[in-house]
């Protein structure tokens, strides 16, 4: 088995979550759950990390931060989105400043369900991610180019707001807005 699956080091970032999922992530490190038995270390340093654990729906202000952390991690790397917020925005979905899920900003490999996600399922998610990590390493070793760059995921909050309007059934609102913008452009 690839060594990377035996020594996955994590970094944890709170992308504007309610802190509930964060506490559960930290709970994984306690003697009760002890993730170090899988060789998992919480590094707190993107350059040492293999797995980015991210909670929360990511707001407009921390989009560049998330991307920065992600890009600083050496490949192969995976992202585990923890909690409903990280999956699709959860209870914060309709906020004006919310990207609505981590995968709108950076590529996500594993989603962990729950509000708040339980430590057991977080550990499950990380362990599931190890398979992806091993695959990615094999792909890199066979000379494939690294697909893990955040550049492809450029997220524009304004256009998202329009898309959000449509998704939420407010097609009229979206139309109004785009018309207003066209007017302004003229």
């Amino acid at each position, binding site marked *: 088995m690839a060594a990377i699956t035996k*020594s996955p080091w994590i970094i944890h970032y709170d992308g504007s979550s309610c802190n509930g999922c964060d506490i559960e992530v930290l709970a994984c490190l306690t003697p009760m759950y002890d993730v170090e038995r899988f060789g998992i270390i919480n590094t707190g340093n993107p350059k040492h990390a293999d797995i980015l654990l991210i909670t929360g729906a990511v707001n407009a202000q921390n989009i560049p931060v998330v991307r920065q952390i992600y890009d600083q991690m050496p490949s192969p790397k995976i992202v585990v989105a923890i909690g409903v917020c990280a999956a699709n925005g959860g209870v914060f979905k309709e906020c004006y400043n919310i990207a609505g899920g981590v995968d709108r900003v950076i590529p996500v490999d594993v989603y962990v369900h729950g509000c708040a996600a339980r430590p057991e399922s977080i550990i499950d998610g990380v362990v599931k991610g190890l398979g992806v990590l091993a695959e990615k390493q094999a792909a890199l070793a066979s000379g494939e180019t690294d697909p893990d760059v955040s550049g492809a995921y450029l997220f524009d909050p304004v256009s998202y707001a329009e898309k959000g309007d449509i998704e939420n059934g407010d097609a009229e609102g979206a139309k109004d807005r785009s018309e207003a913008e066209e007017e302004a452009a003229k």
Partner: protein
Amino acid sequence: MFVFYGDTISLFQVLSLVLYLVLAPFAGGLIAGIDRKVTARMQGRVGPPIVQPFYDVAKLWKKEPVTVRTGAQDFYVLCCLIFMIIAGSFFFFGFNLLMVIFTLTTASIFLVIAGYSSNSPYAQIGAERELLQMMSYEPMVLLTAVGFFMVNSSFNSATILTSPYLSIQYMPGLFIGLVFVLTIKLRKSPFDLSMSHHAHQELVKGLTTEFSGRTLAQLEISHWYENIMLLGFVFLFFTNGSWLMVIVGIVVVIVVYFVEILIDNVCARMKWQFTLKSAWIITLIFGGGNLFVLYYLRGYLWMASQYQ
């Protein structure tokens, strides 16, 4: 036994050098693994497998290189590893202890330069703290070498190993002092200022913040070589040429390492001021005091031999 540039070199020396070069990384890695396991047990956790450090290094070796200033930083860390191996080789080959200590210092300085050469403020503050740590432990290590010379009339570790004098009898103070600074050298709390094994410190990962992949793996391997040599220093206190003392020496080395782990787990991290002051005070009292006594003891023995 053969003669090389006027020095006699025994087969034993060559053998121990080869064994050190080949086995030290394995032994060092295992010790690191046992360290983590014992630490976990002390904290009521299960802990990682004992071979975990090898998995870590194997993984790091295959990671993508992301160093920003490749030429400088990676080169300095490599130098640190090479000089660490040279220092250890000197020690296990039976060379001059002063030579060993100065080569060790060179290795540490390369590490500091590597820290400075990255533009990360965390690494740079880490490098500054590393320098302070070196300032704290260096005098004590040097005094230990002087003590060995006063007892065994030689700086050569090979001579000290086989000399009939049991060094610990004459230099208990120096032993206590060395074990004290060993806490700094092994990067244990309360003195793990420049880099820490534990996450979420105010300096992120301190000196090593900007190291990743292969560079970090090299640093880890150099720690393994270093730790084995440092434990060799502790062992040297308990040699008088008899096999019994070899066993005693090994037991003491294990006990000392266990105590270091215990200290690591019961202490919070201190400021550098405390590190520097306490290390120098201990050096002065235990190291200096011991040397002072040795100095008079030698004079007394010399006088006694004159009046026989």
